[in-house]
């Protein structure tokens, strides 16, 4: 019994080995299959590379420098950028913004602007048919606080005002345009009070001479503050920022402007 078992063990071992070998055989088969598959893939890669090379060459021929030159001459007409088109840095870029200037930054002589601005505002409000007609007798025309203050008036208007000074009369029931302009010099006293307030009780000449250096300085500081506010509101307003963002996003997307 024991002997038989001992003999069988040898056979069993042999069978075991055979079994393992048979189990391993599919591995070898699989490797061979994979390898042939790899070969096929490799061959197709080579074919694809060859084709890519061919197509690349064809594209290179069709888009050769000479051809591009001809197209440019016939259709596009691009020319080399000139020196001013190159920017050195952010500073140079910022100087090219081409934004509309804030109204307060118009290149008009500053003193004239200040004198004319309040004057014209008052003139416009005070000389309206409703404002000028009922109140001449009272001798005082109070401009509404909410009157729109135009900072800038056409230069022609400002120039026209001083010569018309003598014509300034409080009682002018039938106002015409020249008369309105003539009232402008009356206004200067109002800014001194810091209010949009025009007084017509005294002769215009007195008031005009009463404008002192102190008012000038006060006006200057106020104008500066106004300008700053305007720059901030124009440059950093949500609309501007959004427009900038939209622009960059569109450019990043397709290289095209909306």
């Amino acid at each position, binding site marked *: 019994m024991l002997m038989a078992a001992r003999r069988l063990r040898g056979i069993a071992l042999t069978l075991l*080995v055979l079994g393992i*070998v048979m189990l*391993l055989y599919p*591995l*070898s088969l699989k*490797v061979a299959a994979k*390898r042939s598959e*790899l070969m096929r893939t*490799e061959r197709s*890669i*080579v074919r694809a*590379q*060859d084709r890519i*090379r*061919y197509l*690349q*060459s064809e594209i*290179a*021929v069709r888009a*050769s*420098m*000479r051809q*591009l*030159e001809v197209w440019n001459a016939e259709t596009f007409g691009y020319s*080399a*950028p*000139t*020196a*001013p088109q*190159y920017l*050195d840095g952010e500073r140079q870029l910022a100087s090219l913004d081409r934004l509309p200037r804030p109204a307060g930054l118009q290149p008009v002589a500053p003193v004239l602007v200040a004198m004319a601005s309040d004057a014209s505002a008052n003139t416009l409000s005070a000389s309206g048919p409703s404002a000028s007609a009922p109140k001449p007798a009272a001798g005082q025309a109070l401009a509404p606080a909410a009157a729109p203050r135009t900072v800038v008036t056409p230069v022609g208007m400002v120039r026209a005002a001083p010569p018309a000074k003598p014509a300034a009369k409080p009682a002018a029931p039938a106002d015409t345009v020249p008369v309105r302009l003539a009232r402008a010099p009356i206004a200067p006293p109002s800014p001194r009070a810091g209010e949009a307030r025009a007084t017509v009780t005294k002769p215009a000449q007195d008031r005009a001479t009463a404008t002192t250096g102190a008012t000038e300085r006060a006006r200057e500081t106020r104008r500066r503050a106004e300008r700053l506010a305007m720059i901030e509101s124009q440059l950093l307003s949500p609309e501007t920022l959004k427009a900038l963002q939209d622009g960059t996003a569109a450019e990043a997307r397709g290289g095209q402007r909306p």
Partner: protein
Amino acid sequence: MTTLVARPERVRRAAQNQQFLTLTHRRLMMLLLAFLLIVAVIVGRILAFAAFDEGAGKARVAQAFVPPRGDIVDRNGVPLARTMEAYAIRVVPERLINDKVELARELSRIFPDTTTDQFLARMSGKPTYIRRRALPEQVAAVNALGEIGFEYPREQERLYPQLSLGAHVLGFTDAEGHGVTGVERAFDARLRDQARRAAPLALSIDARVQAILESELGAAVTNLEAIGGAGVLLDTNTGEVVAMASLPTFNPNRVGASSLAARRNAVTHNVYELGSTFKPLTVAAAIDAGTVTSMARRYDAMQPVQVAGFRIRDLHPLGRWLNVPEMLMHSSNIVTARVADELGRAPLEAMFRALEFDKRPAIELPERSGTLWPRSWGRVTTMTTAFGHGIAVTPLHLASGYAALVNGGIYRPATILKVDGRTPPQGKRVFKPATSARMRQLLRLIVAEGTGRKADAPGYRIGGKTGSAEKPSGGGYARHSVVATFSAAFPMDNPRYVLLVMIDEPKGNAYSSGQRTAAWTAAPVVKAVVTRAGPMLGIIPDERRDVDLTDLVPLLWKAKGDQ
């Protein structure tokens, strides 16, 4: 008879047992070894699969891509020459079944550039090619004729995708695939070498700049009705040739259609007396030698110089005394001759030899011409070679000379191969650095205020010298056939590139306002090329920078009341 048989069975059995046991052990041992061997083989096989199989696969793929002849690419990797499997169309006349006349008519419909008669001639006689190279659609069209006498072998063909771009640099190959001219010939062994042909050969040429130079030069040559032209753009610090154009040109894809003259590389293979463009070299040699000590010193230019039967005169006589900046600005031969006379033969000749004007140009291309060096060197030779007469060199010689003149005084041989990663060639000193700095000022002055104003592209700080040399003909000089050269460098505050443009025999027509001098013919080409190619080469124009000319401008003579 009785026999006594002894039975030494027990003894034998014991011995036998011992023997059997040993045998069994041995057999077991062998079996064990066999098993170990099998396991080892299996493990080894698996390891082999894991370790070496991938590598083997890669090697096979890599080998499949090696072209039979290496590609040629430009410095940015744009292919300039490739070997492709192209279609050819062959005819075997005895196998033709259709009517030959009919076939020839059909073929000439597909290939309009060949006549019916030519096709008919090819279809009678021995088997021959109808087309060495045909497009796939053309092959399909011919195949659609249904003729069994046609064959469509696929052949390895050299293709130049950029057509005539840089044709003289690249050269071409013969039917067997050997290089005949240009880079194809110079690096034939490298391009065919089994080990190295997989990697493309990178040239120093920039295809974009090359195209710009060729188109601008081509436009000028056409408009000026010139017989030819040459242009070369060199990197001053490495000697790399970034662009090299020669006109007339040819298409290396169809070499047979071009003439021999068109295949000649004017930059390296033709020699010219380049005239006034030599004057800055002479001045630099004189400053170096110490004979020109002051820019303010004036020389007599009132009368032409008479030496040994020669008469050196100015094209536009000013009739007054000129200093060196004025001499260069007005391109005075008389003053140059006087400066050279004072300098003497030895330093001038040494400078020319240091710039290798006595040898073939230093470049890898096989088409290089020897220069015309003066045979006997007398006093007149010194005076005439100083302004570029009596010595003929190739345009490349002069460009290399200018590179040395402006880059701080180091001469480096020109190269057509990309210098990348490696350090640029050592070079040899020809001019002192201070001389080079002074020459930069003077060259910039010529363009800013002198004869080279038409080359002044705003913002690029171009400096250079015009040269309009009359061509020698029949012992003398032909007054009306000139070689107009403009040799420039930019940006002059730190020169990085030298650009030389030469136009051979321009006609003075409406395009150049009736002038045939370099200021009107070659200088505008320089301006156009620099404006277009400068930004590609990394030179950003800046109008707020320039060379400091404040010490030279006060030396220029101005008429009273002139600003």
